[in-house]
């Protein structure tokens, strides 16, 4: 089984629109939205939620004002500046608390509780393109990396059970915690770039990240007709870095049109754009080794 993750570094390059199109084109796959912070794939896939699970991760320190003697030791120890005085007692800002437990064990009055932190929910759903694993982190919550890892694990298990060959995931922007969690151990990163100074700059950051984790990466230039010089620059960067360039997708109003109709852009009647994306998806399948696998599957089926 192969795991393909679409990432971009810069936000808004078209990861989700293209992942939705790939979800439309790919066969026998589990779909995963790993942007658990600001997930959008479900707006296109319109999945029917089959199961909702609560996501608890880590703990949260809470001072009981009735037990607090106001000594302030906790505030001195906290390295996150999460504890401050409030009248006679101290209180913890949940937005700053990282749940390290130091204050809990050091409080001489044992006045600090440490309940599990309810950080979000995740869902197993069905859509017209197949099963979808997605989630929603609660506002301002932490541990997006752990939620990403959990979603991936669930999607992989479900894929194995159904003997699917692919987990196709939409990643988060940036290069930090949730992106790292979506890459480690995956098979192929598809970097959706754009020919702008920001797109080019962040492509390099995310390509460096893939190299750092030894992850094979390929590049798609979206909104390609915006700036030809920037496209050429991205292409030369890809050659220099040995990144497979899979092709260009034009800046097309149809992407917004599709989004409003809650469709993947390849579901619209536009042969040229759909063909272009179909070619790119085929190239991704080849790079991920899905075709060999497919051939293998066909052989196995025949033998059976």
């Amino acid at each position, binding site marked *: 089984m192969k795991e393909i993750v679409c990432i971009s570094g810069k936000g808004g390059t078209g990861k989700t629109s293209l992942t939705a199109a790939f979800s439309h084109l790919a066969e026998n796959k589990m779909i995963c939205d790993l942007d658990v912070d600001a997930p959008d794939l479900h707006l296109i896939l319109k999945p029917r939620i089959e199961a909702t699970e609560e996501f608890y991760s*880590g703990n949260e320190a809470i001072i009981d004002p009735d037990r607090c003697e106001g000594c302030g030791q906790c505030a001195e120890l906290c*390295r*996150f500046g999460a504890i401050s005085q409030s009248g006679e007692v101290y209180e913890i800002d949940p937005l700053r608390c990282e749940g390290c437990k*130091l204050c809990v064990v050091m409080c001489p009055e044992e006045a600090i509780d440490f309940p599990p932190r309810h950080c979000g929910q995740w869902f197993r759903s069905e859509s017209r393109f197949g099963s979808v694993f997605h989630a929603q982190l609660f506002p301002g919550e932490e541990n997006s990396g752990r939620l990403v890892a959990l979603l991936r694990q669930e999607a992989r298990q479900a894929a194995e059970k159904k003997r699917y060959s692919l987990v196709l995931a939409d990643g988060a*922007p940036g290069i930090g915690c949730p992106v790292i969690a979506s890459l480690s151990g995956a098979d192929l990163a598809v970097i959706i770039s754009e020919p702008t100074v920001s797109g080019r*700059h962040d492509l390099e950051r995310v390509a460096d990240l893939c190299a750092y984790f030894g992850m094979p990466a390929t590049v798609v230039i979206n909104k390609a007709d*915006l700036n030809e010089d*920037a496209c050429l620059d991205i292409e030369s960067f890809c050659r220099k870095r040995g990144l497979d360039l899979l092709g260009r997708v034009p800046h097309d109003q149809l992407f917004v049109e599709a989004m409003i109709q809650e469709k993947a852009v390849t579901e619209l009647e536009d042969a040229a754009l759909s063909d272009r994306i179909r070619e790119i998806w085929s190239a991704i399948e080849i790079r991920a080794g899905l075709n060999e696998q497919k051939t293998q599957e066909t052989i196995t089926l025949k033998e059976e």
Partner: protein
Amino acid sequence: MIAAIASGKGGTGKTTVAASLAAVWQGPLTVADLDVEAPNLHLFLKAEIAGRREISMMIPKVDESRCNYCGACSDICQFKAISVLGQVMLTLPEMCHGCGACMAVCPEEAISEDSRPLGEIIWGRRGDIDCFSGRLRVGEAMSPPLIGHVKDAAEKTASERSADLIYDAPPGVSCPAMKAVTGADIIVLVTEPTPFGLYDLKLAVNSFSAFKRPMGVVVNRAGIGNDEVYDYCRQKGLPLLAEIPFTRSAAEAYSKGLILAEAFEEHRERFAVLAEEIRRRCVCAGEVTA
């Protein structure tokens, strides 16, 4: 006055707005790019770099000659960053949050502070504007501590010069975005009139309401998509601070690293009005609190 330019969805135009505001701002100004994972503001402001400083965070270093492998450190560590394997201590520096708990509970005082690089802060000037940005080290997962350092540096300079401060925040609504927006006097949410833009705007409004600060919306790429984002703003009583129409020429200018307010006269006027609007709303909110 501190204005945070934020959004739920990435790529809605935070940096476009921040750069254009900087170009038209009246009076002393400091700007800070807090999107340390994918910092882009410098590509537009092109500040003359005056210095850079590496930022690191504390991680534990175990002196095994003093360690008796009691396991107190691994018991308290909530991040699985330190563990005892028989007679060997294993630390995973990249998992560490730098809380210092292991050090505080070690009965043998066998743990001291080491450091792990988080990234760097870069500062410089563009004309009279002080510019700060943070760059997360590639491979580093934790951006909030670096964001905190960039904010501290920018706030120090801004207060020394009695300057206003503009933050270009990272996308999303989880810990990096929350860290960036904390302490702002006004939160400017940049969105686009599409279903993705609207959905993520709602997430941002829900998350940032916790700060109880005035919020306003800038609709970028106005004219694409539909009207639902306007309906939502009306329902929620969120002021529409500005609309930036989508034009091919603006998108091309952006792709080359041009600042909209400098490249087009009509945008200069638009952002000058936005700047005044932001300032006015801060003053009003300040008077209400006072």
